[in-house]
C-alpha cells in the first residue's frame, strides 16, 4: 500500500506552473528525496502533500484515502520547514509539546511529557528542554524542528531542505542521524533538497524535478548510472558529468546521439600524447588533452583537462601527479559513456 501519492497533480500560481501533472507514489517506510534546482517545484510538491496548497488538477492520497479536499490539520502529516520556524516565544519543551497539545489530539499531560522527553533524548536535546529556542545554536534549533515533527508519529513526514541552513559539519552529522532515526522508526519521508550529496545518501528513491515536472524516480544508483535525460544526469555527481560531442572523445556512438556524457571517474588519463606508444609498446588510444588544473581532495584527485577546446573533469588516483599544461591521453572506460539525443533524452 502506498503511504502517500500525488496523482496527476498540477498547481499554478498565476501564469507559472509550479507543479505540472505530477504523479508520485511513496511506499510505506520509504525515504523519497526530491532533487532539483531552485524553482523546480520541490517545495510546492511538499505543500501539496501537506495540504498547504490545493492542486488545481489531480488528486492527493495519504494512507490510501483521498485527501485532496482535506485541510492540513486532518491529514496526519508533519512538516519540517526550511527555516526553523520554531515559536520564539516558547521554550524547547513547549515547542516540542505544541503539536501534541493540538485540540483534536486530546493527549494527557503525563503522556505529553513522556513523549517529549523521549524525543528530546533521541535527538540529544534533552538538557536544553527548558531553554528558550532563541538561545539555541542553529544545529539545536533544527533538531528541535525535526523533533516537533517526530513527536506526533504522523503517517507522513515532509521535510523542506531541513539541513540547508546549517554549516557543513553539522549538516553531515544531522544527515547521518536523520537516516538512523528514519530506519529505527520506519518513517515515511518525502524530503526536498538541492544538495545531491543529501539525496544520494538519504534516499531510498530520488525524484529528479525540473520545471515542475518529475523527470525520473529511481534509486540513487539507478539515477546515477542510467539517468533519464541530461538534466537528471547533471543533478547527480560531483564534479558534474562531462558533456561533450561524441566525436571529441573519439567514442563509438549509437545513431542519433548528439551529446555524450562521461562521468569523471570513467575517464582514464595517461601522461603523454595519444599517438605515442607507452612502455609496453601498446597503443594508448584516446584523444590528447592538456592538463589545466589539478585539485587534490585527499581521497581523490580531480584533473581539469582541455580536450578539443572543451574542459573535462577526470578523476585520477589520489597520488596521481600531472604537471600543469602537460599533454595527456584520455580514454573512456568501455561502455561507460552515456549518449543523449538532440532533445536531451538518453538513448
Amino acid at each position, binding site marked *: 500500500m502506498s503511504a502517500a501519492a500525488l496523482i496527476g497533480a498540477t498547481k499554478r500560481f498565476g501564469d507559472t506552473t509550479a507543479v505540472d501533472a505530477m504523479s508520485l507514489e511513496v511506499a510505506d517506510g520509504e525515504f523519497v528525496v526530491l532533487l532539483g534546482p531552485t524553482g523546480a517545484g520541490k517545495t510546492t510538491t511538499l505543500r501539496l502533500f501537506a*495540504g498547504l496548497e490545493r492542486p488545481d488538477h489531480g488528486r492527493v492520497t495519504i494512507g490510501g484515502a483521498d485527501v485532496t479536499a482535506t485541510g492540513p490539520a486532518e491529514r496526519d502529516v*508533519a512538516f519540517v520547514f526550511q527555516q526553523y520556524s520554531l515559536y520564539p516565544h516558547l521554550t524547547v519543551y513547549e515547542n516540542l509539546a505544541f503539536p501534541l497539545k493540538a485540540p483534536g489530539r486530546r493527549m494527557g499531560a503525563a503522556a505529553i511529557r513522556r513523549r517529549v522527553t523521549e524525543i528530546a533524548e533521541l535527538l540529544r536535546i534533552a538538557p536544553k528542554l527548558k531553554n528558550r529556542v532563541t538561545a539555541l545554536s542553529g544545529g539545536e534549533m533544527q533538531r528541535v524542528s525535526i523533533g*516537533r515533527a517526530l513527536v*506526533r508519529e504522523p503517517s507522513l513526514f515532509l521535510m523542506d531542505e531541513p539541513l540547508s*541552513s546549517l554549516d557543513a559539519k553539522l549538516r553531515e552529522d544531522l544527515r547521518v542521524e536523520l537516516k538512523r532515526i528514519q530506519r529505527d522508526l520506519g518513517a515515511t519521508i518525502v524530503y526536498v533538497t538541492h544538495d545531491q550529496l543529501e539525496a544520494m545518501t538519504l534516499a531510498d528513491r530520488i525524484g529528479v524535478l525540473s520545471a515542475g515536472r518529475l523527470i525520473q524516480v529511481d534509486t540513487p544508483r539507478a539515477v546515477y548510472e542510467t539517468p533519464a535525460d541530461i538534466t537528471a544526469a547533471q543533478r547527480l555527481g560531483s564534479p558534474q558529468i562531462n558533456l561533450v560531442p561524441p566525436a571529441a572523445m573519439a567514442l563509438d556512438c549509437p545513431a542519433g546521439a548528439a551529446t555524450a556524457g562521461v562521468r569523471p571517474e570513467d575517464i582514464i588519463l595517461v601522461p603523454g600524447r595519444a599517438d605515442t606508444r607507452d612502455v609496453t609498446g601498446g597503443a594508448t588510444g584516446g584523444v590528447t588533452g592538456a592538463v589545466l588544473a589539478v585539485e587534490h581532495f585527499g581521497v581523490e584527485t580531480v584533473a581539469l583537462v582541455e580536450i578539443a577546446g572543451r574542459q573535462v573533469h577526470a578523476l585520477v588516483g589520489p597520488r596521481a601527479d600531472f604537471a600543469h599544461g602537460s599533454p595527456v591521453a584520455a580514454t573512456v572506460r568501455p561502455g561507460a559513456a552515456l549518449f543523449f539525443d538532440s532533445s536531451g533524452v538518453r538513448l
Partner: protein
Amino acid sequence: MSSAAVRVTDTSPRGKMIAGTLVIAYALLTMIPLVWIVATSFKSPPDSISYPPKVLFEPTLEGYVNLFTTRSRQTPEYIDSLGPPATWYDSLVRERNMVITGESRFAGRYMNSVIIGFGSTFLAVFLGTLAAYAFSRFRIPLRDDLLFFILSTRMMPPVAVAIPIYLMYRGLGLSDTHLGMILLYTAVNLSLSVWLLKGFVDEIPREYEEAAVVDGYTRFQAFIKVVLPQMRAGIAATAIFCLIFSWNEYAFALLLTSGTAQTAPPFIPIIIGEGGLDWPAVAAGTTLFLVPVVVFTVLLRRQLLRGITFGAVRR
C-alpha cells in the same frame, strides 16, 4: 600605551563625556515644565504666584484638597463655632477661613477620562489587530484601496469634521455619552492601529502559522497561540500611541461633552474659573492627569524595548 584592545568604532572617553553632558542638559531642559507643574501642585496659592518665583518652598497638599473639594468662605466666628476640625484637610481649609461644602467634580471627570481613554484604546487595538491580520494574510478584494481609505480618515483636520460630527452625535443621542466618546476615539485611532499592527504582522513569517496548522490547529487557534504572542511588542506600542491620543484629546471632548461624559482635559481649565486663579489646584489636576499615561508607558516599556525576537527564523 595600554595593551587593552580599543575598537576603532568606540567613542573616545572625552567624546562620551561631551555627549553625556549634552544629553543630560537637554533632558533637564525638557523636564523643567514638568517639574514646575509638579512643584506648583505642592505650593500654597501665595507661593505659586510669588515674584520672583520660589524654587524652594514649604510643600502643602492644599492644591490637591482644593482640586477635590468645593469650599465657601466663612467668618472666623462661624468657623470657631464649628468645633475642632475632623480631618487634616478640614484644618488645612479652615486656615484660609473656608469650610468644605462638598466634593468637586474632578474625580468624576477623571474617571470619565479613564473609561473613555482605556475603553477606546482597547477597542482600537482589538479591532486593529484583527483587521491587520486579515489585511496581512488574506486575499481581500481592493485591499490596497481599503488600506488607503482607512489611512485617509486620518488626513482631515478635526476642525473640518467637528460640526458634522456634532450634528450627527446630537441626532443619534451620542452627545455627552461615554459610548459616543469611545466610538469617536476608536474611529480616529483605528487607522493608526491598523497600519502599525499590519507592519508587525507582516514581519511574522507565515511558516509559523503553517507549522501550527499542519500540527493540527485551526487557523484561528494558530492566530491566538502563535501570532498573537509574537505581536506583543507591536500591540504594546500601538496601545501606548492610542492611549496618548485619546487621553490627551481636547477639541472633541470640549465640543461633545459637557457633563456626564466630560473628560479631564476640558475640565481642568474650568478650575481656574471656579476658584479664582487657583494655580496649585490646576497644577494638581495636571499632575494627576499625567500619572496614568506615565504608568502605562512604564509598565509596557519592557515590551517596547524587548526588541522583536525573530531570532528563531533566518530570513
